[in-house]
């Protein structure tokens, strides 16, 4: 049966051999194309295929008080990231993650959508995981392709104080914020950035520098070790920020004011250091840390007492009678009055066809300059204000920093409002207002709006005779903010005596502010600012001097009633604590 002859035409043999050769040439040339002509391109591709850059988040700098107590700390948490391109069965991965961590898988899916940036950029899936959750995840690592975790330092507020308004909080960088940044590559989605307060103001100092580690990984995303020859960069922690805040004093003031809406600030006038900075109501800054921020945030937003508002720098209030000091300064500056000169206060004052009243309906009787301030007699100031021009009054206000921001290192400060003739003309028309309005302004009523921090600067300038330091919360060299040639030394003393009489005199409106400590001189001024929102705002601004040490304080209680009755006692407690013989105070180096 093997006899059948093999008769293959030569042509067919050649054709078949030709086909073999052609197919092999096709293969060879393709290999040649890939390995010789496209070598560089594929070499590069292979490099990025095996190397993964892992970012290491740098901890932010700590925030310390003037005694180096830690106010804002970091604590390590874990965040979970996923590389979208490597997570093939996302549903299943989220399910496994949910199983391991006990967190609903919807949250992973939500985060994935929120933080997704590109197919091979690690996308955050969850934050604030504990080491326990991570260790369970590690066991299921093989079922979680593309999923990684890394350490992520979160803010932690360890001290007894809230300080919510000056410390500020961090915000996660989302795509909108990121696109607004000058250099978007500096931030990854989910990074934390200082959003308010000092965290914002000192962002560049507090922010550390992210490190990069180049790891060799296999196709399952398992790390095989570091790669040599690449620029591995360690994470550089941010610089610590030391504040001028005295956390004990801050805690005391927060406690004293806990039932009110308002502000309390304590500062050192010479250097401008802020010792306490309270805006009430406030909240504990730890509320902004962690996973469920949105709910708490909304609760704060909806609170009608507006705890998110920083009343110290952005609250605008009529200054009330505390502004009589401005009028007094204007009078003294121009030497237009004789401080001994007395006028009679009967409780009412007729100006044109309008009747103005003193707060004391029976009147103060005969009132000189000192009594006018100490007992805050309206009638005295109604009369005296008429000796000066509107523009002089406005200029004095501007000289003492009203109507513009103080430049304190807290973001978003407001400048308030000091009416000028132009302003009045614009608002009421040229004939729509009269000097009668100026009478109101003399009492700190009407169109004037000031922020409590401006009042701090004001009282500091008064007590330093126009030589106060620029207000600041972060430790630094003193910057002076000098007001030249306001009053003669003699006139400053007259003013101070009057302010001290306000407290010392048993008729003085500020008598409740005196802690009665030997050698401690207290001076101040009450204010009871009428406003359309109910009871008047209670003000007390003042200073205390003992030996070399001088501090000032501004207390404002919204709708608190009389300044002397509600604000002054808080002031007293601050000074009683600060100047008690037991207290020791650190003087910051100001080289």
């Amino acid at each position, binding site marked *: *049966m*093997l*006899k*059948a*002859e*093999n*008769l*293959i*035409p*030569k042509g*067919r*043999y050649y054709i*078949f*051999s030709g086909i*073999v*050769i052609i*197919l*092999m040439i*096709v*293969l*060879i040339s*393709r*290999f*040649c194309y*890939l*390995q*010789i002509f*496209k*070598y560089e*391109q*594929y*070499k590069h*591709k*292979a490099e990025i*295929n*095996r190397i993964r850059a892992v970012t290491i988040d740098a901890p932010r700098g700590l925030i310390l008080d003037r005694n180096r107590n830690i106010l804002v700390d970091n604590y390590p948490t874990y965040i979970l990231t996923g590389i979208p*391109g*490597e997570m*093939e069965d996302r549903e299943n991965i989220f399910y496994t993650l949910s199983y391991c961590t006990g967190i609903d898988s919807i949250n992973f899916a939500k985060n994935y959508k929120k933080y997704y940036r590109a197919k091979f950029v690690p996308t955050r899936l969850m934050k604030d995981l504990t080491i326990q959750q991570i260790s369970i995840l590690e066991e299921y690592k093989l079922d979680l392709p593309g999923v990684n975790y890394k350490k992520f330092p979160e803010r932690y507020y360890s001290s007894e104080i809230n300080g919510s308004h000056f410390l500020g909080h961090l915000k996660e960088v989302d795509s909108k914020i990121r696109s607004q940044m000058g250099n978007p590559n500096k931030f990854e989605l989910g990074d934390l950035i200082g959003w308010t307060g000092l965290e914002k103001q000192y962002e560049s100092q507090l922010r550390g520098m992210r490190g990069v580690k180049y790891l*060799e*990984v*296999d*196709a*399952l995303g398992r790390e*095989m070790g570091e790669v040599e020859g690449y620029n591995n960069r360690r994470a550089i922690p941010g610089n610590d920020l030391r504040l001028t805040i005295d956390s004990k004093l801050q805690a005391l003031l927060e406690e004293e004011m806990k039932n009110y809406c308002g502000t309390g600030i304590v500062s050192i006038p010479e250097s401008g250091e802020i010792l306490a900075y309270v805006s009430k109501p406030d909240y504990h800054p730890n509320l902004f840390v962690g996973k469920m921020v949105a709910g708490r945030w909304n609760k704060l937003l909806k609170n009608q007492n507006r705890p998110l508002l920083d009343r110290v720098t952005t609250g605008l209030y009529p200054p009330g009678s505390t502004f009589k000091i401005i009028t007094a300064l204007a009078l003294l500056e121009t030497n237009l009055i004789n401080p001994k000169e007395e006028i009679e206060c009967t409780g009412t004052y007729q100006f044109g066809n309008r009747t103005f009243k003193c707060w004391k309906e029976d009147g103060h009787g005969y009132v000189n300059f000192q009594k006018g301030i100490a007992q805050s007699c309206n009638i005295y100031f109604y009369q005296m204000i008429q000796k000066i021009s509107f523009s002089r009054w406005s200029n004095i206000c501007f000289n003492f920093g009203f109507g513009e921001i103080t430049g304190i290192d807290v973001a978003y400060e407001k400048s308030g409002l000091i009416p000028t003739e132009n302003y009045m003309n614009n608002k009421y028309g040229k004939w729509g207002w009269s000097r009668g309005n100026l009478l109101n302004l003399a009492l700190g009523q009407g169109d004037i709006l000031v922020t409590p921090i401006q009042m701090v600067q004001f009282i500091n300038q008064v007590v330093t005779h126009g030589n106060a330091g620029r207000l600041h919360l972060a430790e630094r060299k003193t910057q002076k903010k000098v007001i030249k040639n306001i009053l003669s030394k003699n006139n400053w003393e007259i003013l101070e005596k009057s302010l001290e009489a306000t407290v010392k005199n048993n008729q003085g409106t500020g008598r409740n502010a005196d802690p009665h400590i030997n050698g401690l001189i207290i001076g101040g001024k009450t204010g009871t600012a009428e406003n359309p929102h109910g009871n008047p705002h209670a003000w007390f601004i003042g200073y205390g001097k003992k030996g070399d040490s001088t501090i000032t304080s501004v207390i404002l209680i919204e709708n608190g009633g009389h300044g002397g009755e509600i604000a002054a006692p808080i002031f007293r407690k601050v000074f009683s604590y600060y100047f008690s013989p037991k207290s020791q105070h650190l003087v910051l180096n100001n080289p």
Partner: protein
Amino acid sequence: MMISQVNNTFYKRPMIVIFASMVLTSIGLTSLFSISPHHSSDVMSSSFLKQLIFLGPAIIGLILMVFIPRYLIHKYIYIIYAIVLCGLVLPYFSQNVAGTNRWIDLGFIGFQPSEFAKWVIVICLARYLSDHKLKMRNLSSFIIPFIIIIIPALIVLKQPDLGTALVMLIPLLPMLYWAGAKSYHLFLLIAPFFSILTAFHPLPFSIWAILMILIILLEKPSLIVGLIVYFTNLFLGLLAPVFWNSLKEYQQKRILTLFNPELDPLGAAYQIIQSQTAIGSGGIFGKGIGEGTQTHLKFLPVQESDFILSVIGEEMGFVCIALIILIFTWLILTIVKLSYSSKDRFSGLVLIGIASLFLSHVFVNSAMTIGIIPVKGLPLPFISAGGSFLISCFMMVGIVMNVGVDSHD
């Protein structure tokens, strides 16, 4: 006397075939050694060691095939064919491995009958075509060869193993051609496949339709036959979408991403992209054995079997790839030449069939790793890991040495 006779006949064998296969096997073992874990207990289960162990039975198989008298093969091939068909059906009754019915579990080792079916079919076809002194003038004489080849192919396709099924069909064409079939008839045989393939886009389908008219006109059949051939093909083309839907999703995906692998870099095209990256980054001289980053970081899928060429390309470079392809070309051309010069028709057909089996494996496997045809799950002869296939390849070499006595010696 006996020994000298054996010696004498052995001397006449084309030794170059066995030499080529040993070189290729060594290259394969080298690359398998490179990707095997070099430490701890994993060594025993490494594909390198397995391959080395299988080399024993492979060489026994080769010697067996060399010395089995040719007439015995010729005599019993129909029975062997029947046994192989049963063997192909057997895996359906054993356990399902990795979603396929490809393996017969022999307890200690898995065994793939389909690997042996490839050349059994070829020999069976050779016997039929040589026995029946077919005039090959009639299209009807294609029917039985077609049946011989389509039955095992369909069983394998159902396993499912598309690659092996296609490879089983391929030798039919050159063997019919060798047996003297008219080119026009071969055209009629492959025309339906073209009709189906081109049907997915109007432009190639139109070109194909015009080409068909030209070829049919050149052959000048009767009007009715010509029209039937033409419209049957068009009809098949229109049925193509139905055929398409009958494919498994992964098969559809493989074909689709062939045209644009970047579309889905981590889906079906992942393998192609990773394989191309591995090969391209190897350059002329490669990264060195054991230095392939694509390979060792497991970016390459099924690297020890289907994608072994990517490992070689990455670690040993273009030089080694070119060497492998040259050796294969040499081997195949030698078998074709043996086939052309063999004295009897049966041997000639067996040799051309085996040559086309080698050619199709080499071409499909290489083309797949460099992304010019879809991923097809076909191993590279002598080089890819896989016991059954290694034994099968060495047995084919044995058959070549058996029937292909070099007449020029």
